């Protein structure tokens, strides 16, 4: 491994620093993002480097963070707001649904909302209640928003830059379980990666595994295990949850004829359901087996003593894959 390799959370910091430097209209705001550098260190050092006017500690109020960002964005600033944990995003969602997502449409393009709302999300770090949930489907349901989830340092850097530069509001969810799991060399060249497309993490011919966020790691491990058994799995990281790039997924499913969707969020009415519905609508005749979802349960995220039994495990993913492969 190269010695200047960085983690996912460091890639977030690197992207923020790059754009704060490159674009004077960008500002970072949120609870504890300044002096403290964020409770996960995602904004470490940024206030020192760019000053208090560009990297702002806000009072403790999420609706304010969202609503004030909307005002700044309408004035041509590019606010990058942090919500400390996704579990506390809900007061902000009011502003995101009622204003951020529809300002362009409401004013027929006169006012726009080029803001980013970042939040760490997901389970697996033994955190207290409300610190471990995955509610991306709620956000993806809102017309006018983009919802983006990186699964690696490289994707975090490139997708966050794209999110900041996007002319519309983007919710950028960071899978904190893998904030420091792997390091990659991520050149600080300011090159964005495309939004609204899936990323193929592994090519295969026998089955398509669709996932995003932290679950990409278990899914890739399962693909490795399958390879040893002579099964060639294609792994697709959705990356932009909304709008969904179904073309990439459909092309893969048309090739493999089998599909398993893996997500940490609870099962019903989730992003997996949307993907499965579109496969049914557009590629039914290519399927050799029903689409399978391996997901969290339809329960609230249990407190951490039971959380590992809530999160989809490698064994559960593998079992789901076997079921789909063995379908007559």
């Amino acid at each position: 491994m190269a010695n200047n390799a960085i983690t996912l959370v460091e890639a977030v910091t690197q992207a923020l620093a790059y754009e704060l430097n490159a674009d004077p209209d960008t500002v970072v705001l949120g609870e504890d993002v300044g002096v403290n550098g964020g409770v996960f260190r995602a904004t470490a050092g940024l206030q020192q480097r760019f000053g208090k006017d560009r990297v702002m500690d806000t009072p403790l109020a999420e609706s304010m963070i969202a609503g004030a960002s909307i005002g700044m964005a309408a004035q041509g600033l590019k606010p990058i707001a942090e919500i400390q944990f996704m579990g506390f995003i809900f007061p902000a969602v009011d502003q995101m649904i009622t204003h951020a997502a529809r300002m362009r449409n409401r004013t027929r393009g006169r006012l726009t909302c080029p803001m980013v709302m970042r939040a760490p999300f997901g389970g697996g770090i033994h955190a207290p209640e409300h610190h471990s949930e995955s509610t991306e489907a709620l956000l993806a349901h809102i017309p006018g928003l983009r919802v983006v989830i990186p699964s690696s340092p490289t994707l975090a850097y490139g997708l966050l830059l794209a999110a900041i530069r996007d002319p519309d509001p983007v919710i950028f969810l960071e899978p904190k379980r893998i904030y420091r799991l792997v390091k990659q060399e991520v050149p600080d060249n300011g090159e964005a990666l495309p939004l609204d497309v899936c990323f193929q993490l592994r090519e295969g011919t026998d089955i398509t595994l669709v996932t995003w966020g932290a679950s990409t790691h278990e899914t890739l491990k399962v693909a490795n295990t399958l390879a040893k058994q002579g099964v060639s799995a294609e792994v697709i990281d959705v990356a932009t949850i909304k709008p969904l790039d179904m073309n990439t997924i459909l092309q893969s499913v048309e090739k493999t004829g089998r599909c398993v969707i893996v997500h940490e969020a609870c099962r019903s009415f989730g992003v997996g359901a949307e993907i499965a519905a579109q496969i049914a609508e557009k590629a039914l005749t290519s399927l050799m087996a029903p689409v399978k979802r391996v997901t969290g349960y339809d329960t609230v995220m249990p407190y951490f003593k039971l959380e590992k039994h809530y999160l989809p495990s490698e064994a559960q993913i593998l079992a789901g894959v076997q079921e789909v492969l063995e379908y007559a």
Partner: protein
Amino acid sequence: MQREQVASFSISHLRFLDEHGNTTQDLPEFAKDPDTLLYLYRTMSLTRAADAKAVNLQRTGRMGTYPSSLGQEAISVAIGHAMRKEDVFCPYYREQGTMLQRGVKIEDIFNYWGGDERGSNFGDGTSEDFPISVPIASQCLHATGVATAFKLRKQPRVAVVSCGDGATSEGDFYEAINLAGAWNLPVVFVVNNNKWAISVPLSEQTAAQTIAQKAIAAGFDGEQVDGNDVIAMHHTLEQAIENARQGGGPTLIEALTYRMCDHTTADDASRYRPREEVDEHRKKCPLVRLYNYLLNQGLWDKEKENALQAECAEKVQAAVDAYLNTENQPLTSMVDYLYETWPASLADQRDALLQEQQALEEKGEAVHG
């Protein structure tokens, strides 16, 4: 140009014991009863001992992230003592001292922060108190709803809710005090002003000179109290709670204190606040202050202190044993409390959990890890 003054307000500050434990004015009647003061001191000591153990359990990998109440014991213990059993408490996460007086067991608190939902099923099952509310300030609104129920049913009961200084920036806080004022509700708001909200100092949280004055905007009284002086806290709380019980409406109490610890065990406060500031506030410790007063009054001595510490250690150890020996919840506990009856259409998910549970038991594996 002439402008008429149509309203004017002031905020007062109350204290009886200075930081050395000397009285600054005549004590209120209740404080002349040694038993009451000794009770408060003992409860504060137990709270601190349990709290220190929780931090220790976290440091040794036997508990999750934990928010210590170090330095804030006078506030929470005074709340617990001033409330009647039939009142309802809506706590924030640093009110261990109140909870312990309201039937919550030390091991309940350990279980909660140890990642086990049963920690909120506290007391003997008769408690109507709310569980800890993690989303900041949200509990302030619950207290107004509880108080509305008391009012509608003409019950002489009071809702007490607490939060931190940072919490008073949230919409939920303002919405709650506004409703409490507009409906003249029997509710008391206690703000633990410990000067910091994680890394954000009060001076960046608000431009208001006091937090107590936020009540003025909501149309009722706000009072500032030395939150490290348990006598001042108890006096103020008792008056506010009784006033609410008599139909006199809400009060906001701003308790001035200091967070003598990191925000939680996951935090490192040295990143954002100077050591000297913490040291300065250590001198104002609520326990030391009362200890000195009791000592000066001849109500306490070293021997009694040693005996008390031993007694606290014993109680805490019993709670640790109970906590560490708590049997795991079955995996189906995830679904069994979500609805009164788990929906038939989701039966397959419960079955899957049951199967996983059985597989684990066959392998002889612990359910959690």
